[in-house]
């Protein structure tokens, strides 16, 4: 597993994309065919079912090391990752055995039909032959996800460079379904197996936050303005009469939205459309919290269908009649999309409205008003732009409305996981209700590394508990919390839930006497919920 371990180590120990690309290319050069296929499978989320529970792994590790459970948990909370904790607490290996990634994976696949004692013998034996770094990888292979230090964009980028191909072509080849045992790595990347794959989505084109003044973009007439929606970005595919709906998380969600699938089935033509799934009732887009009720359910009941009716706002046309349209200018793609909508029956699929304004002058006002439509702001797309793979600066901009904010006090802190496991990085905040404090949000991001250290030091000095990952802290530190939306909810004691809460700034100038009152906060809830 050396080559693979080296790759993981290299990916894991740098934030620099170029270094990551180098490491992947090195592996593509040196790795064995079977290992490369496993690598691709693991890094695109095609990992096999977990053959044993993490509880068992934890038990066995405690047994081997003779560490009491409380101490194991302390270690875990300092590390933030179970597989890594186990790898670190185990004694150094007493033997060395060099096996390839695919050899390990073959054995791991066999585990699922074995008895617990067979599994245990295998795992203990493996632990005793692997040094800490490889042991960590082995534990990862046994359990959890395997997305270490590399985004799918970087992976695709590395493959594209190595094979001198277009990124979108690589993405097309490796997304979707393929079977490790039936493909040759080179051919797979080169797209040899992808023609027969009807369901394949394209990589989404993503926008950067607007970073210049509107007039600096050039002529208003060169740009298409639309509302930015806070729903589920999806790709709506119809090829040879078959319908597929992909979410941006590269998940096939066709079954979760049967009414959309039906609508697509009624449409004529072969196409791939980029759009947004939104909860819409009587022409009013509902906040994301409504749409959320439909997510991650095994069965979508009739009641659910009528309680949370959904629509798709269509943004763009990527493929039409079997032809890839992404290189054509947006103006052409939009015109064809409009034609397609016009030719087909009126359903819950509708065009995303193009905002008309004479010059740039009107747009700021329109943007300010976006929140009343439950929109997040505006999108600006250059009419000559192709449909890029991933994020590319210059052609598409998102211009969000300024976030809502409240002042809240820190009351619980928890150690982070992964990257920031040595510090308290996860915070729970409270606002006032009469004389008590009520929790309103958890937030993980927004502070600088330095501020995190400062908060961590405060937590260490002002916490009531000495053990375990969560600390109750003296309510003293006040933060300005920004968020994108707010709705009633019973998940938090305050009775409201914030959408995308994040720390805007540490208000060192404020004390707990200055934090917001829940009744004031509730006034921010939009009328439609």
């Amino acid at each position, binding site marked *: 597993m050396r080559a693979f371990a080296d790759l993981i180590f290299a990916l894991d*120990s740098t934030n620099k994309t170029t*270094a990551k690309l180098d490491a992947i290319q090195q592996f593509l050069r040196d790795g064995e065919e079977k290992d490369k296929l496993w690598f691709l499978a693991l890094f695109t989320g095609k990992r096999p079912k977990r053959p044993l529970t993490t509880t068992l792994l934890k038990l066995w590790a405690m047994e081997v090391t003779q560490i*009491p459970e409380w101490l194991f948990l302390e*270690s875990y909370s300092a590390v*933030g990752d179970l597989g*890594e904790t186990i790898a670190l607490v185990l004694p150094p290996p007493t033997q060395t055995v060099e096996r390839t990634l695919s050899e390990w994976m073959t054995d791991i696949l066999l585990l699922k039909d074995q008895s617990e004692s067979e599994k245990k013998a295998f795992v203990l034996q493996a632990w005793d032959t692997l040094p800490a770094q490889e042991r960590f990888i082995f534990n990862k292979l046994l359990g959890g996800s395997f997305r270490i230090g590399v985004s799918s964009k970087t992976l695709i980028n590395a493959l594209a460079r190595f094979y001198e191909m277009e990124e979108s072509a690589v993405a097309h080849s490796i997304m979707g379904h393929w079977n490790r045992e039936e493909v040759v790595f080179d051919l797979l990347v080169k797209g040899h197996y992808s023609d027969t794959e009807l369901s394949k989505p394209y990589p989404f084109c993503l926008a950067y936050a607007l970073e210049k003044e509107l007039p600096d973009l050039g002529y208003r007439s060169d740009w298409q303005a639309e509302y930015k929606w806070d729903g589920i970005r999806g790709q709506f595919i119809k090829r040879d009469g078959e319908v597929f709906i992909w979410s941006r998380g590269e998940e096939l969600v066709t079954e979760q939205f049967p009414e959309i699938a039906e609508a697509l089935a009624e449409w004529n033509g072969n196409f791939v459309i980029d759009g947004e799934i939104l909860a819409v009732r009587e022409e009013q887009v509902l906040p994301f919290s409504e749409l959320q009720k439909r997510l991650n359910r095994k069965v979508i009941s009739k009641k659910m269908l009528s309680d949370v009716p959904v629509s798709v706002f269509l943004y763009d046309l990527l493929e039409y009649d079997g032809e890839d349209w992404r290189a054509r200018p947006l103006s052409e793609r939009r015109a064809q999309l409009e034609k397609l909508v016009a030719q087909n029956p009126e359903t819950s699929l509708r065009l995303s409205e193009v905002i008309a304004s004479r010059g740039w002058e009107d747009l700021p006002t329109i943007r300010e008003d976006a929140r009343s439509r439950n929109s997040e702001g505006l999108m600006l797309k250059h009419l000559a732009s192709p449909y890029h793979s991933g994020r590319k600066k210059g052609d598409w901009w998102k211009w969000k409305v300024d976030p809502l904010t409240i002042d809240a006090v820190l009351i619980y802190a928890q150690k982070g*996981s992964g990257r*920031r496991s040595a510090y308290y990085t996860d915070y729970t905040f409270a606002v006032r209700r009469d004389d008590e404090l009520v929790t309103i949000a958890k937030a993980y991001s927004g502070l600088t590394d330095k501020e995190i250290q400062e908060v961590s030091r405060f937590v260490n000095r002002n916490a009531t508990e000495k053990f375990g990952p969560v600390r109750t802290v003296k309510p003293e530190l006040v933060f300005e919390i920004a968020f994108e939306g707010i709705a009633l909810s019973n998940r938090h004691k305050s009775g409201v839930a914030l959408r995308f809460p994040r720390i805007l700034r540490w208000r060192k100038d404020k004390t707990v006497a200055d934090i917001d009152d829940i009744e004031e906060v509730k006034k921010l809830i939009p009328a439609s919920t």
Partner: protein
Amino acid sequence: MLTFTDKGIYCEPGQFYIDPWKPVDYAIITHGHADHAKWGMKNYLCHHFTVPILQSRISPDISVQGIGYHETISRNGVKISLHPAGHIIGSAQIRLEYKGKVSVVSGDYKIQEDGLSTPFESVKCHEFVTESTFGLPIYRWQPVATQNEQLQQWVQHNQEQQKTSVFVGYSLGKAQRIMQALKDAGPLFVHYSIGKLNRAFEQIGVELPKYEIVDLREDVKHLDQGIVIVPPSLLESKVIKKIPYMAHAICSGWMQVRGARRWRSADAGFAISDHADWEGLIEAVKATGAEQVHVTHGQTAVFAKYLNEIGIAADVVPTEYGQEEEEESPEKKEAQS
């Protein structure tokens, strides 16, 4: 024999303090790190090697007496002797004997021999005062030879790619260890704050590998493909970014954990520490045979609880130690650079 006051660890019969953090008349200092060696004491007693460090850190005019390891002096009937702590050059455990009772204050210590500081020596006692910076079983150091090899390999790898290797390590202790490990790996350059301490060591006869002092505010072209050692305070100051085509590594015990390595976003992280690892701490405590253990800083609650579970009476005593860079986090800025 020991009491823990708001000024520091106090020896009542001897009427002196060990590593006090507030001004007192007579202070015995375990080692030269800023959180153990504070300013304002009327008289200091420490190991010979620590004298120039105190003079350079606090003031050349302090009243300080240096003694050797195992040398015994007496104060108000308390026999005092220093024993190697293996933490950094000159670091000492303070052994106190009074009316047949022995107490040892260990300051900071490490069991591994680093090739620079006098190796740790276990001292039998009734009462033992210990740190617990890395008091969790996830901290287990590689043998020093392996650590050195890893550093050498990393430098070689950089050189193959025509890169300059930059190491970030505490200027007192870690920096000299890195120099030692890489003495044959390429030209060594050290930041002037490290150079200042190096000169203090050289004054007292410690032999360090050949190095050149570098001021990163000036021209840095000559550093190309060499080895540069800088204190952690420079990491965030962006000065090191001035060095063209470089890779930088952090050397600290915290680098054992992936999350800490990734947070630092260095090109490499090496778990090299001047503190004892988990097994080192337990081994050291057991070897003293002490009936009572006091844990001063680090993972105090965890370590004391564990010691009690394995049958060694231990408690946590509040101190102000633990502000040394490696103890607090790999981040903390050096007080004076």
